[in-house]
């Protein structure tokens, strides 16, 4: 655990604010606040790093904050960003419903928000909502899962957090493919809330109740890592595990013959695009683009895993 992380988890938003503010940029274009879920998940860390790097390149100061998927904490962080007079907020939000009010509050205070990764339930409040094409990505993952499963057998699905639209959309994408194969039978479907430890525990008990299971399809990579660890501990290395995100951890597992596949979300680039649109908006009053934008995902398996690094694929 590095020092930055300790600062993030140490709690007080104010402390974080001071700790990670980059002062004294020559161009002095103002301040961009970058708010994401906990950097414990490397996906969110990649977003924050990508956004921060691009913002500094474009001449902005940055503050990097984490809401830990707690809408109350997110609300406090928005207050911090508003009080600091941020020129824009880059946000991976803490809930599709709960976030509408805070984004509105920032807008009323004259601060535009640019959303990445997760949508909110209303349009016309955020300036941009740039999200991965989760449905397209889930279909890619499901097709690969079906193929490796040989179109038959019992399987388990681990779902993400219910408050997050992406949990539902990925599950929907999975089932729109998998349910077409009558010999693939779902024996358990549980939420592990995107969490590795929770996925480990859930997998252990599911495995006990369903020893004949043959595959696990997961809503994200951290849950896939948790499920794989539980399967490995139980000596069930033959079980097929598929994830979603394209993390380095899962890449390494794929290359070592563990997890079979995942789906890459271009998180790093997505965060950078959000900053570029924020810059455009700050300069001209418009991004010139539609509010809601989809970015396509890419299937990662043993064929291309070696080209994956920090949520980006080198070609």
């Amino acid at each position: 655990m590095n020092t930055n992380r300790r600062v993030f988890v140490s709690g007080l938003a104010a402390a974080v604010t001071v700790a990670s503010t980059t002062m004294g940029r020559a161009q002095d274009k103002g301040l961009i606040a970058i708010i994401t879920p906990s950097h414990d998940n490397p996906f969110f860390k990649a977003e924050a790093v990508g956004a921060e790097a691009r913002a500094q390149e474009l001449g902005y100061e940055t503050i990097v904050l984490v809401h830990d998927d707690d809408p109350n904490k997110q609300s406090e962080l928005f207050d911090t960003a508003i009080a600091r007079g941020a020129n824009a907020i880059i946000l991976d939000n803490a809930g599709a419903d709960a976030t509408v009010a805070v984004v509105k509050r920032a807008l009323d205070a004259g601060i535009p928000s640019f959303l990445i990764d997760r949508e909110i339930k209303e349009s016309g409040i955020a300036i941009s909502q740039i999200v991965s094409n989760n449905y397209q990505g889930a279909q890619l993952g499901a097709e690969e899962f079906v193929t490796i499963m040989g179109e038959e057998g019992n399987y388990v699905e681990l779902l993400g957090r219910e408050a997050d639209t992406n949990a539902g959309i990925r599950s929907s994408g999975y089932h729109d493919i998998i349910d077409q194969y009558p010999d693939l039978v779902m024996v358990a479907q549980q939420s592990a809330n995107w969490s590795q430890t929770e996925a480990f525990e859930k997998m252990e008990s599911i495995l006990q109740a369903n020893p004949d299971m043959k595959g696990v399809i997961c809503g994200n990579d951290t849950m896939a890592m948790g499920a794989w660890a539980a399967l490995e501990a139980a000596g069930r290395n033959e079980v097929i595990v598929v994830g979603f995100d394209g993390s380095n951890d899962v890449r390494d597992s794929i290359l070592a013959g563990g997890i079979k596949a995942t789906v890459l979300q271009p998180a790093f680039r997505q965060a950078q695009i959000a900053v570029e649109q924020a810059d455009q908006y700050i300069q001209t009053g418009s991004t010139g683009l539609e509010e809601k934008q989809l970015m396509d995902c890419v299937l990662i398996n043993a064929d291309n895993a070696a080209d994956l690094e920090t949520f980006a694929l080198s070609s």
Partner: protein
Amino acid sequence: MHRTLHLSVLFLMCFAALNACKIVKNADPAEAGQAEEAQTDEARMALLSRQIWEPKVLPAVAQLLAPLPDLRAALAEDVDAASAQYGYKPEGEASPWNFAVAGSGRVVETKMKSRAAKVEVDTDGDGAADVTLQLGPIIRGTALRDAMPFLSFSDFRDQIEFAKLAGGLNKMAHETIEIPTEDPIGQTVTFEGVYTFKDLESRPEIVPTSVTFGAP
């Protein structure tokens, strides 16, 4: 503090009670079930797909339609220029281009028994398949939705609703085309349809809006 809390709880209870009083009669369970069903994303998007299919979708496909050999030649020369000339894509980086094509060829491979039935077609006469026609009922991808200039993600609640719209349009395509009862392998085929461009190496997976099979 505690007192306030108790008062609020009391108030809430009264409010709940008042609210309960407003319910005049129980809705017929069958009716309620139907209303509920009509409100699912899938049902609403299926309905929307049906409503826009004739008046808007088919004309938009016709508007974008290019002869497959022309498009293929242009893409081979310059992907970006060909895309800008022939294609349509929703705004935003990493949104792929979509093309509408008209073509014909010979069926060289079939997979008719699958729920995701498809035929592989040789359109350039070299004996090898160069496009896939997806016949369904399971049709993958979102090409039909994403080739429509009048359909914007911003106008939909979230990705789930937008995905169901793509599914609804794919279903309309499956419903519209006539699927041969016998395996069409070796037959000629004339088609129009839409696909999402991946790269020059990937075989286009066309969602057909019309297909006619003929004698070999």
